[in-house]
């Protein structure tokens, strides 16, 4: 990559090297790529940041403002005149402008709407109706006067308050417990673990046969697998649902359950598994196979002791694919698992939340992040195998 960039540079007509390094083309390329990266990461970043924000802040300001201290202009009515008390010979009214909200602090205050920031917190201002008022940063105010105050209604105090950014895990706690995401996480794991493991052995044996054994119908079998790669899942849903219903009626069991989903996912993953593994196994060195055959090793032995260990990268690629696909699946789970709470998977639960709590973003963002965090960890830690699998699966 670096060499490609370097050789591209040498093609330019001669100019001082330092000038060519900062050519307009290079700057444009950097900016364009940066633009794409920002566009591709910002939505996810927004989700993550929002999931950690305080519920009220999340619903009142954009997530991009969450790291700056927001200032807020506000007004609060003081008590009516009858509330005043006599203390040490002066008449006093006390209270708190922030109603005890400890997250906010008062920066400045004023007695008229056109002079909101007349004095800083801790300062004192004269009141129009006599006496003077002092406001502390925590919102406590004291209005005291040597003579008894007499005024109509409840006058206002104006103030500017600061809301510091607040990071909290409350949303996660709530969505995990009260909104069933925690249970759905377990259910997703229940579906995914067997559905990822079961197809591997089945596919590996079939792939070996298609790659290294001679038998009539082999080409046809390969062609069927390739064809099935693109058959829409939708073709299978109704007939398989009918089979399941039939089995359920015959044996008096429930038609929807984990076993049915495991088997369905296994089957739907097989074409890709066989295709990937066969492509990989075909590329294993012929000489090793043949010398093993000469030594009298059976196909079974060759497969178990040589092909399976050698195919580890391809097996890993497929396992990652299948894991991501099953974990992220919605359709198969909806159709074959149903919507009962003890079976709903994460994607299904998230869709339900989207419908019932469509504007409770503190729940949706934290819920969504929980559903995507496991695939993201798998993806970033095993990206190499994932990419290798993608390349083997589509370029030929």
């Amino acid at each position: 990559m670096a060499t490609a960039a370097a050789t591209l540079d040498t093609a330019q007509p001669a100019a001082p090297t330092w000038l060519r390094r900062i050519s307009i083309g290079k700057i444009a390329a950097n900016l364009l790529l940066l633009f794409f990266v920002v566009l591709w990461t910002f939505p996810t970043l927004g989700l993550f940041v929002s999931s950690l924000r305080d519920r009220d802040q999340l619903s009142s300001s954009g997530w991009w403002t969450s790291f700056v201290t927001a200032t807020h202009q506000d007004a609060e009515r003081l008590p009516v005149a009858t509330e005043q008390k006599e203390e040490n010979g002066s008449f006093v009214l006390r209270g708190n402008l922030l109603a005890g909200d400890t997250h906010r602090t008062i920066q400045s205050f004023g007695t008229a709407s056109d002079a909101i920031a007349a004095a800083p917190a801790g300062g004192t201002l004269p009141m129009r109706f006599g006496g003077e008022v002092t406001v502390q940063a925590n919102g406590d105010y004291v209005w005291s006067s040597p003579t008894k105050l007499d005024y109509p209604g409840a006058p206002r105090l104006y103030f500017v308050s600061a809301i510091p950014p607040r990071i909290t895990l409350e949303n996660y706690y709530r969505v995990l417990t009260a909104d069933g995401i925690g249970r759905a996480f377990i259910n997703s794991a229940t579906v995914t673990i067997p559905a990822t493991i079961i197809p591997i052995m089945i596919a590996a044996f079939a792939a070996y046969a298609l790659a290294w054994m001679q038998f009539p119908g082999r080409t046809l079998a390969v062609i069927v697998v390739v064809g099935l790669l693109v058959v829409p899942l939708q073709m299978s849903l109704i007939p398989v649902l009918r089979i399941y219903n039939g089995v359920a009626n015959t044996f008096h069991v429930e038609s929807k359950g984990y076993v049915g989903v495991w088997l369905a996912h296994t089957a739907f993953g097989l074409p890709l598994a066989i295709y990937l593994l066969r492509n990989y196994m075909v590329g294993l060195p012929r000489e090793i196979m043949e010398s093993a055959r000469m030594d009298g090793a059976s196909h079974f032995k060759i497969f178990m002791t040589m092909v399976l260990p050698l195919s580890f990268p391809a097996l890993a690629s497929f396992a990652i694919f299948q894991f991501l696909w099953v974990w992220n699946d919605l359709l198969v789970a909806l159709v074959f698992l149903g919507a009962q709470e003890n079976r709903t998977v994460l994607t299904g639960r998230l869709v339900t939340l989207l419908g019932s709590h469509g504007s409770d973003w503190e729940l949706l963002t934290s819920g969504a992040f929980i559903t995507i965090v496991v695939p993201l960890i798998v993806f970033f830690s095993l990206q190499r195998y994932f990419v290798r699998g993608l390349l083997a699966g589509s370029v030929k």
Partner: protein
Amino acid sequence: MDQEIIQQVLGALLAAGIAIAAAVAYFWGTNWLLDRLYATAPGLVASEADVRRDTRRSQIRPWLFIFPALLFLAIYMIYPVFETIRLSLFDKFGNNFVGLSNYAWAFTDGGFWRAALNNLGWLIIVPSVSTAFGLVIATLADRLWWGNIAKSLVFMPMAISFVGASVIWKFVYTYRAENLEQIGVLNAIVTALGFPAQTWLTIPVLNSLMLMVILIWIQTGFAMVILSAALRGIPEETLEAARIDGANSVQIFFTIMIPQIWGTIIVVWTTITITVLKVFDIVFAMTNGEFQTQVLANLMYQWMLIYGDFGRGSTLAVILMLAVAPVMIWNIRRAAADVGTR
């Protein structure tokens, strides 16, 4: 409750263990049985009977290897293809033959045409934009020192579920009443520019485009990875020759690189096409097909599970299958040629 969860997880682990054990037992057992049934006497000179047994064994063994896979594929994919076609000719419950009337319904139904038209829009826009973006990003990233980081980040949405991506983007598009501060990025930008905020997902045509953005966002990473690998496969001498002839970067991109990787571009394009045809989750989660955003896969789901009409559901599945068929045939022909040369 906790007890139940523990049981459930243990059950899953147990199932995985049993499956592995069963697979090993099957393969080992059947192979052992085969060797027993057609045992050959050890020795240097093989009798005619031994040769026959040898042949027999090597005829049967491949089928033992592929039998479990074949069984799964037969029950879950091959039989259903024919069964779905059959059911599409039957009524709601699959009892009475109704000929082509389900198809007649589909082709005269406004809802179907809306979905088909939307699917066509998805088909035209998503694969081409994803492939184009993927190509541009791959080309740029391979020339810049931070290209690998950039590629990783663009690739990341591939790991995110369609539903997760839908929530991410619904948050981008979200709308607050006029007098409130907009918390969705899109409306925040729009209001900052002095325009009124919009409820984007309820505006026909525009809302479909906004759903397509989600799939483009996911699929661009796929296109980028495949095309990046193809770009690196271009022989350095080819590029060098073009440079010596005085071609600039842009000319090299269009006259050398793109023709060289054209085959891969087609593969990427068709792969994304298949994904697009099957798109269900995004529409289901974002609008459930309302505000004229319906697509075939979601329509099929509704007829199958909401209205419980297996006839019409099957008909829609068959139509989806027919739309995929050209790509399938093309893939099969390439694979057949590939197997033939080996």
